C-alpha cells in the first residue's frame, strides 16, 4: 500500500485462462467492503492467445486505473513466463503467486524464440518472493480445468487487506447467480488453492532454513 492507501493487485496470464473473471470477482469483494475500485486490462486481442494483464486498484479513492511499474502489492501469475514478464511491476521484494503451467506460444514452437529455462529462478534472482504451485493440476483433480481461476483466487486469499471469507463470498455469489451447481466445486477449488499457497510458503521456508 502507498500514501493514498490504495492496494494494487496485478493479475496476469494469457487469453482464455479466466484472468479477467478472477479480477472481476476480486473487484466485487473490494466493492462489497465499500472501497472505491478501478479495474483495467490490456487484452486487445486476448481471445487469440495474447498476453492479458489486469490491474485492480482499490482504496478510499482511486484516480488512475493503472498500476505503475514497481508499485504492485501483489502479482498473481496464471502462467510462469508471464510471472517473469510482469514481475518488474511489483514493489521491491514483492510477492508473486504463480501457477507453474508453461503455456508455449506458436512463436516458440516455430523456433523463433526460447521459453525461459527457469522463470521462477529468474524472478527470484530479481529479488522477489515466489510461491509456486500447479493450479491446473489442482483444477483437473477437482474435475474441471476451468476451476483454475478459483484456485488462483484461493491462493490470494491470505494476502489481501481483507478476510479470505469476503473473497469466498464474492465467488459464491457469482456462481450462485450463474451456475448454482458449481458453487460447491468452486468452494473446494478455493480451499485447495489456499492450501497450495500455504504449502508453497512452507516449502520455501524449509529451503531457506
Amino acid at each position, binding site marked *: 500500500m502507498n500514501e493514498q492507501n490504495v492496494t494494487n493487485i496485478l493479475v496476469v496470464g494469457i487469453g482464455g485462462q479466466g484472468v479477467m473473471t478472477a479480477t472481476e470477482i476480486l473487484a466485487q469483494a473490494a466493492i462489497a467492503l465499500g472501497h472505491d475500485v478501478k479495474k483495467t486490462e490490456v487484452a486487445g486481442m*486476448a481471445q487469440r492467445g495474447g498476453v492479458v494483464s489486469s490491474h485492480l486498484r482499490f482504496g478510499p479513492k482511486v484516480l488512475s486505473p493503472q498500476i505503475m511499474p514497481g508499485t504492485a502489492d501483489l502479482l498473481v501469475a496464471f502462467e510462469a513466463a508471464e510471472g517473469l514478464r510482469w514481475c518488474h511491476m511489483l514493489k521491491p521484494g514483492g510477492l508473486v503467486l504463480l501457477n507453474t503451467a508453461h503455456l508455449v506460444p506458436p512463436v516458440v514452437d516455430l523456433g523463433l524464440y526460447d521459453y525461459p529455462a527457469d522463470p521462477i529462478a529468474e524472478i527470484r534472482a530479481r529479488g522477489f518472493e515466489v510461491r509456486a504451485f500447479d493450479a491446473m493440476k489442482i483444477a483437473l483433480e477437482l474435475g474441471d480445468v476451468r476451476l483454475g481461476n478459483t484456485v488462483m483466487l484461493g491462493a490470494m486469499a491470505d494476502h489481501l487487506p481483507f478476510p479470505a471469507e469476503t473473497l469466498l463470498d464474492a465467488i459464491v455469489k457469482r456462481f450462485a447467480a450463474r451456475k448454482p451447481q458449481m458453487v460447491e466445486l468452486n468452494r473446494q477449488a478455493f480451499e485447495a488453492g489456499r492450501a497450495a499457497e500455504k504449502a508453497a510458503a512452507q516449502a520455501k521456508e524449509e529451503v531457506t532454513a
Partner: protein
Amino acid sequence: MASVMPAPSQSRLFLSGNEAVARAVWESGCKVAAAYPGTPSTEMLEVLSTYPDIYTEWSVNEKVSLEVAIGAAFAGSRAFCAMKHVGMNVASDALMTLTLTGVIGGLVIAIADDVGLSSSQNEQDSRFWGRFAHVPVFEPSDSQEAYEMTKLAFDFSEKHQVPVILRMTTRINHVKALVTVGERMPHDNPGGFKKDPARWVMTPAGAGRRIPLMFERDAILLAEAESSPLNVVESGSDRRVGFVASGPAWMHVREAFPAMPALKLGFSCPVPVEKIRAFAKTVERLVVVEEVEPLVEKELKAAGIACHGKDILPKQGELAPNVLKPAIARLLGEPVPENLAKPAPVFPRPPTMCVACPHLGVYYTLSQIKNLTISGDIGCYTLGAGHPWNALDTTISMGASMGIALGLDKGRGEADKDKRILAVIGDSTFLHMGMQGLLDIVYNRGNVTVLLLDNRAVGMTGGQPDPGSGRDIHGEPAPRVDFAKLVEALGVKKERIHVVDPYQLPVLFKTIREEIKVPEVSVIITDQPCVLIDDYKKQKPYAVIDEKCTGCGNCVEVGCPAIHVTRREKAVKPSGKEVELQFVRIETSVCTGCGLCVQPCAPEAIVHADPRQPMRLVKH
C-alpha cells in the same frame, strides 16, 4: 420487458466506460442506436442491444450507422452512434454536412480512440473532428463521467441542435469503475419529422445560407465551454506547475501530482481559452497534458498563453504517471526518478488465429504458392502476414485490399510482370467497404483473384453478426446476403466464382492455382464459420502417435495453436541436405478436430484421439 440491469435509481454499478455510456444512452430516452463494431467501442452497442425500448442495429459500416442516427435525430428522436476512431474517417462525409443542418432530437456520437494501439492500425486523435466539423467535444475521464457526460450531451445536443462528440479512449472504454446510475427518462417527440427543405436538403445555396449559422453557433459553443461545469479547476498548494488535462490523462495528472493545481477539460472543444488564461495566471508554468496531438496546446499558444506540452511529453501513446513524473521533474530541474523496474526480456505473445480457424487452410495454401503479391485487408486474416505463413503483403484500411490489388495490377513494373495479384478480404470487411472496390476491379477489367473469406461473423471484434450471418444484433434470424449472387451481380463471370470449403486443402489449392492463371477477375468464396460463433460445430479431436511422427514439420506450417513442437533434431537427408526435424504433439483438449493438419501428414501420424487412452496419445 425487464431491463437487463434492473438497477434502481442511485444504485452503484461496476461498469466499464462502454457499459456506462450504454446505460446513459438508454436512460436518456434514446430511441435509435447504431454502430459498426470496432475495438475499443464495440461493447457500447452490444450492451445497448440488451436494453428494452430502444432500437439497436449493427450497421454495415460507420457511415451508414451515422446516417441511421442522423435520420432518427431529424425525425425528432434521440439517437446514438458509436465507432472506433478510424470509423469516423468513413463516416465523416456525413458529419461534415450534418454540422450545417444540425439536428432536432439529440444526437451523440461516441468515438473511441485507441491511444496505446491495443488493436488498431493507427492512433489518430478524434478531437480534430470537433475543430473540423465545428461541433462540441466532451471528454470523460472515467466511467462515472462517461455516464454523466453522455446524459449531458443529449441535453446539450438538443439545446443547440448540434451533434455532440463524446471522445473516449481505450483507457476509458475498457476500464471498470463504480457508477451511480438513474432511471430511464422518456424523451418526448411530439412534432415528428418536419419538412423543411431549406434545412434538410443541402444544396449549394442551402449550405451557403447555413454556414453563417454554424459560425454563430461557434460563438455560442465557446461561451458554453467557458462557463461549463465540465471545465473545473482543482486547486493545489504547489503552484510551480499548473496542468490542463482531459480524458484519462486527467486522472493520471491527479494521481501523479496531487499537490499541484489542475484544470480539467471535460468540454474540450471549443477550448475555453479565457478560463485557461485566468488559470495560467495563478501558476508559475502551465503544462498541457493531452493524448495524442497538441491541439489544445497549439490553440493556447495561438491565443498568446505560454505553455508546455509536447516539448516535454511524448506525441504517442498514453500519458500515464510513469511518463509524466520524469518529464515534470526535468522541467523543474529536479533529479529524475530513476526507473529501477526494467521488464525482463521474455518472448512476445502476438495474437494468433484460433485453434481450427477457417482461415488457417487458406494461409497454409497461400504459403505454398510462389509468385504471388497478396493485397490484404483488416480482420483476423491480417494475421496471415505473420508466422508461419508470411502470406499477406499489404494492409491499409478496411476494404483497401480491392483497390490496392487493382493498383498493383495496373501499376506493375517490369520486375512484377509475371506476378499474380491476389486480394484477401473477410465477409464483414467486404460488406463494409470492399464491394465497391470489387466493382471497380470488374468495371476496369483488372486481373485480380479475390479470396472472400466468409466466416459469417466479424471475427476480429469478437464474432458479432453481419449481413452475411443470417442473424441480427439480438441473434434473431435476419435476411442473409448471398455472396456468390452478389459478386455475380457486380459483374464477375459466373464461371469465375467458386464457393469452397477451406478445410478441403486439395480443392482450395487447385481452385486458387487455376484462378490465378486466368487473366481476369475471379472470386473464391470460403464458406466455413468462425469458431467463436454458434454455427461452428466441434468434431472429434486428434492426437499424434509419437512412433509414427517423422518430424517433417508439415503440420506446424498449418499454424494451428493446438500443435506444439516437442523437440527439434538435425538430420541429413539422402540428398546430403541438412534439415531440422520438428516432432510434435497436439493439445488434444483444445483440438476441435477440423482435420486440417491431418492432410499434409504423409505418415498418417495424426489420428483421432482414443477417448479410452488419451494419456498415451498426448504424452510429451
